[in-house]
Structure formats: structure tokens, C-alpha cells
């Protein structure tokens, strides 16, 4: 309502000015400019109020959809590493029951430790994304890449170091087949899976276990390809 009054005053001052004399601008210039400034200020305030209400309404309308989408993505992201952690844990218990002091038991333990670290790195990346301020539109794809979801063709699934956060481990790749080798932290999931497979082979464990690990690997590859295509 303030704006309407303001505009009315403005129009009235115009009408008055046109009706009275020719050198209106000298007499009323300051007044008109002041009215016009006030009008502009009031309209900007209206726009700002609308913007603020719009932001809240837009957020409310989209939060659940965003949550659902993120939930599914997070669940898919953790599937392979979670399954490998469960596998390595079962193998660790099995090895300890068979022969607690064996080199195989030590190797399985260090594999499990690396898998746990791998999982922690993914979780940490997700937490970082949550704590970071909302990026502008152009930064969104970069954000996804930091989560290890985005893959560029050079870093993509054609190679063994499947996800971006794991690129620091490619140098340790050649040592994967060595059962007793103590692996440094930072292997890719692909490397950890192969390490686990080599342990299964060297311990002469049932063939089905290899299929189980290959299944995890296959699903993980499919996820990598799919997320890459999305971006």
C-alpha cells in the first residue's frame, strides 16, 4: 500500500506540474526524484520479500525429492564396499578359526583394514559435501565428481582405478597379487576386490566365493558406467 500511495503522489505531482507552469522541472525536480527513488526502493523491497518467500517455498517443495534421490545414490554407492567389508570380515573369522597365527590370517586382516579405510574415505567425502555451502549452478558437477560419483573418461571404469578419490593408489596396483604384501592405504575398490580374490585363490576356498566377488565387481562397474552417463 505504501507503494500505491507513493505512486499516487508521484502522478499527482506530475499532473500539478504540467498544469501550472513551464519551468516545472526547476521547482519540482528534487521532489520528483525523491518520489521516484522511494518508489524504486519500495518495489525492490517487494521483490526481495517475494524472493525470500519463494526460496522457502521452493526449498520446502524440493527437499524430500532431493533426499530420496540422494538416499538411493548413497545406498548404491556403499553397496560394493559394504559387501566387500562383510566378505573380508567373514574370511578373517574363518582364518582365525582355522589357524590364527597364519600369514593368510594376517593378510586378510590387513585387507579388511584397507576396506574399512576405503569406506571411511567415501563417507568423509559425503560429509564434506554436506558441510560445504550450496554451490552456484556451475559448480554442481564438480561437487559430484568430488564424491567419486562423477567419472571423466580418463579416470573412468575402463581403468582399474575406478573412482576419483582413489587415484593415489594406482602405483600399488602391481603388488595386489602378493598375498603377504602389506598394502598402503588408498587402494581403489577394484584393487581391493582383486586382492580379496587372490586370497580366496591362495587359500583354496570354494569357487563360489570368486563368483560372489566377481558379482560385486560387475555391479560396481555397472554403477560407475551409469553415474558417468548421467553426468
Amino acid at each position, binding site marked *: 500500500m505504501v507503494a500505491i500511495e507513493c505512486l499516487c503522489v508521484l502522478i499527482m505531482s506530475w499532473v500539478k506540474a504540467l498544469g501550472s507552469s513551464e519551468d516545472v522541472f526547476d521547482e519540482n525536480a528534487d521532489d520528483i526524484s525523491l518520489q521516484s527513488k522511494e518508489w524504486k526502493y519500495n518495489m525492490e523491497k517487494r521483490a526481495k520479500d517475494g524472493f525470500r518467500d519463494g526460496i522457502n517455498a521452493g526449498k520446502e517443495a524440493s527437499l524430500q525429492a532431493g533426499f530420496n534421490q540422494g538416499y538411493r545414490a548413497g545406498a548404491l554407492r556403499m553397496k560394493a564396499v559394504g559387501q566387500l567389508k*562383510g566378505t573380508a570380515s567373514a574370511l578373517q573369522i574363518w582364518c582365525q578359526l582355522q589357524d590364527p597365527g597364519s600369514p593368510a590370517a594376517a593378510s586378510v586382516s590387513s585387507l579388511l583394514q584397507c576396506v574399512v579405510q576405503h569406506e571411511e574415505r*567415501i563417507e568423509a567425502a559425503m560429509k564434506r559435501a554436506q558441510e560445504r555451502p550450496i554451490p552456484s549452478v556451475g559448480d554442481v558437477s564438480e561437487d559430484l565428481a568430488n564424491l567419486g560419483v562423477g567419472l571423466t573418461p580418463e579416470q573412468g571404469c575402463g581403468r582399474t582405478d575406478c573412482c576419483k578419490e582413489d587415484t593415489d593408489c594406482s602405483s600399488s596396483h602391481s603388488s595386489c597379487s602378493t598375498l603377504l604384501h602389506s598394502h598402503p592405504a588408498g587402494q581403489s575398490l577394484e584393487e581391493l576386490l582383486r586382492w580379496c580374490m587372490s586370497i580366496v585363490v591362495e587359500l583354496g576356498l570354494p569357487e563360489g566365493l570368486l563368483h560372489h566377488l566377481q558379482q560385486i565387481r560387475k555391479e560396481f562397474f555397472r554403477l560407475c558406467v551409469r553415474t558417468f552417463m548421467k553426468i
Partner: protein
Amino acid sequence: MSMTDENDDLFDSVLMADDRFRIEGYREGFEEGTRRGMIEGHNHGMIHGAKLSSEVSFYYGFAMTWKYLLQKNTHGKARKRLKAVEVLGDLIQKFPHEPQHENLQEDVERIRAKFRQVCSLLNVPMNFCDYVHGSGSQDF
């Protein structure tokens, strides 16, 4: 156009200006809010989905591995263990990773209970179960 119509139009535009600026602001704000809500919701949902999936996937890998390790043995006790890990595996395969799944809480509790049963059948030390539960479980 008559003088009265012109005056009406002018009067309307004065009245409408107030709303027009507000509506334009609202529209822009809604767009920005939608984008922010999607990102915030996504980041938040991702952590929840990841947490639960990490726990449930762990159980699945654990169950499948024991399934293959136990398949060699066919005596009574091993068969009972095998049955339990197979049931656990089936429960997890049927579990949908949907945030708005109706029986989410019940299904997760059923899976956790089955896992604890598997651990006890396999004589897995309790501190192992604690470690798993402490690191993987979550409140809803």
C-alpha cells in the same frame, strides 16, 4: 479508448505493480529455493542412504561368504548355520533401498536380529558383533 478507460488502466497498473514485483521475486526465489532444496536434500539423503546400505551390504557380504564356506560341510550343525545365512541373504535381497519404504524400520530390525542369530550360530565373538553394530547401525 476513452479517458475513463485510460484512467482505469493507469489505476490498475498502480495497484498491480505491488503484486507484480512481489510475484516476480517469488518466482525467482522459488526457482533458487528448489535448486538449493534439491542439493541440500540430496546431500543429507546420501549420508542416510549410505549409512544404512553400508550396514546391510556388510551383512550380505558376510552371509554370502559363509554360505560358500559352509557348503562343503553337510553335517547337522553346519546345515543349521547354512540355513541361517541363506535366510539372512534372502532377507537382504528383498530389502528395498527406498527411503519411503513403508516397513523400513521393521525390515532393518529383522535383518539385524537375523545377523545376530547368525553370529551366535557361528560362535563369532561378541566383540565382533559390537564392532559391527557400533560402526554400522543408525537411528531413524
